[in-house]
């Protein structure tokens, strides 16, 4: 595996135990095929939105609608029925399940279907998660099901977590040990997918560092940060080299009183600059 830019190779190199991301047992690192493919441009050429030339808004809407229609035939789900109102915006569709438990099953079915498709097409599955109850619903919907789920007309291949790559749709900028982060809220889910060999990358950005960066660049409210080091480029690469460099996640051996006073004892880390990923 060629060296990846950014902090990715250091993901498992943390020194102190982290309750959210416990140090994994030694095992071969999963190959981030999708990341490599993305970086090499192979993937880009295969994907509709990456074809050469700008896709017009209309074309994009049409594609969205086609995609939505393809995945939303009312009879295809044993758990939910199509109830798309005529007023739904931008090709959106609506599936209604009778209750949350059944809804969670439908969620699990859709996720597994998407995973199966992606893995058969490209060998990996990229999933974006939001925090909160959604992740818990997903965790439970993936539980205790190794393929043939109740009446599902699609054959799901065995769940292969090593081919899943999960990303956050968003994250709160809070200290790494805060319970407010999506990552903390998703602890159960992360533990589960980790056990199955998946990677979930957590973004950790110091609040203090963010403020410092903002004042340096006067880009308040327009700040762009790396989300995942090797997959998503910042729109301001090179403008601040420290933002592109990993730093230790838990500087347990540093003396907290040294350095600048940061928020919640974060000064040593903030002083090193840049977001940390773990």
């Amino acid at each position: 595996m060629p060296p990846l830019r950014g902090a990715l190779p250091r993901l498992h190199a943390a020194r102190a135990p982290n309750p959210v991301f416990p140090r994994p047992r030694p095992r071969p690192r999963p190959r981030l095929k999708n990341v490599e493919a993305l970086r090499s441009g192979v993937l880009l050429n295969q994907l509709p939105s990456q074809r050469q030339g700008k896709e017009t808004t209309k074309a994009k809407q049409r594609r969205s609608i086609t995609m939505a229609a393809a995945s939303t035939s009312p009879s295809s789900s044993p758990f939910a029925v199509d109830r798309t109102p005529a007023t739904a915006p931008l090709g959106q569709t609506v599936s209604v399940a009778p209750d949350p438990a059944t809804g969670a099953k439908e969620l699990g079915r859709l996720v597994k279907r998407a995973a199966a498709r992606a893995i058969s097409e490209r060998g990996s599955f990229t999933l974006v998660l939001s925090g909160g109850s959604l992740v818990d619903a997903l965790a439970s919907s993936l539980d205790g099901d190794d393929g043939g789920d109740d009446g599902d007309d699609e054959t799901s291949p065995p769940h292969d977590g090593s081919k899943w790559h999960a990303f956050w749709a968003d994250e709160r900028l809070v200290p790494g040990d805060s319970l407010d982060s999506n990552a903390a809220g998703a602890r159960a889910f992360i533990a589960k997918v980790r056990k199955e060999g998946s990677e979930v990358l957590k973004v950790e950005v110091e609040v203090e560092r963010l403020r410092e960066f903002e004042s340096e660049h006067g880009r308040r409210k327009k700040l762009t940060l790396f989300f995942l080091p090797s997959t998503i480029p910042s729109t301001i690469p090179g403008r601040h080299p420290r933002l592109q460099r990993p730093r230790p996640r838990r500087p347990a051996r540093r003396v907290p009183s040294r350095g600048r006073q940061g928020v919640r004892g974060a000064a040593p880390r903030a002083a090193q600059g840049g977001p940390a990923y773990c």
Partner: protein
Amino acid sequence: MPLFDLVLLGVGPDGHVASLFPGLPAVDVPASSGQWVVGVEGSPKPPPLRISLTLGAITSAKEILVVAFGAGKGDIIRQALLLGGKAGSVLPVQRVAGARWLIDAAAAAGLEEEEKKE
């Protein structure tokens, strides 16, 4: 833009998705900018500082699911799906082109009332 296979989103009572809250500049990052991630400051829901995928990054995914269960979501679902644009401003969730809503019957109750009226 990134090409995610599946994006799972919730929706807030104000129509926010990810950390894209209505009225904040983060929602308006144009897809043409190629920006995938945006910093969010002043989130109405604490904590105020966040980062989020942009709408462009979200809508470039192959599939997008907006999941909302419970009667508490009924209001925003009705607003987003039936009253589109009428309230003057477009909610972030309404701008997620091609999203598939997955809701339960309790959340869909508002939808039915409106349909009966029409």
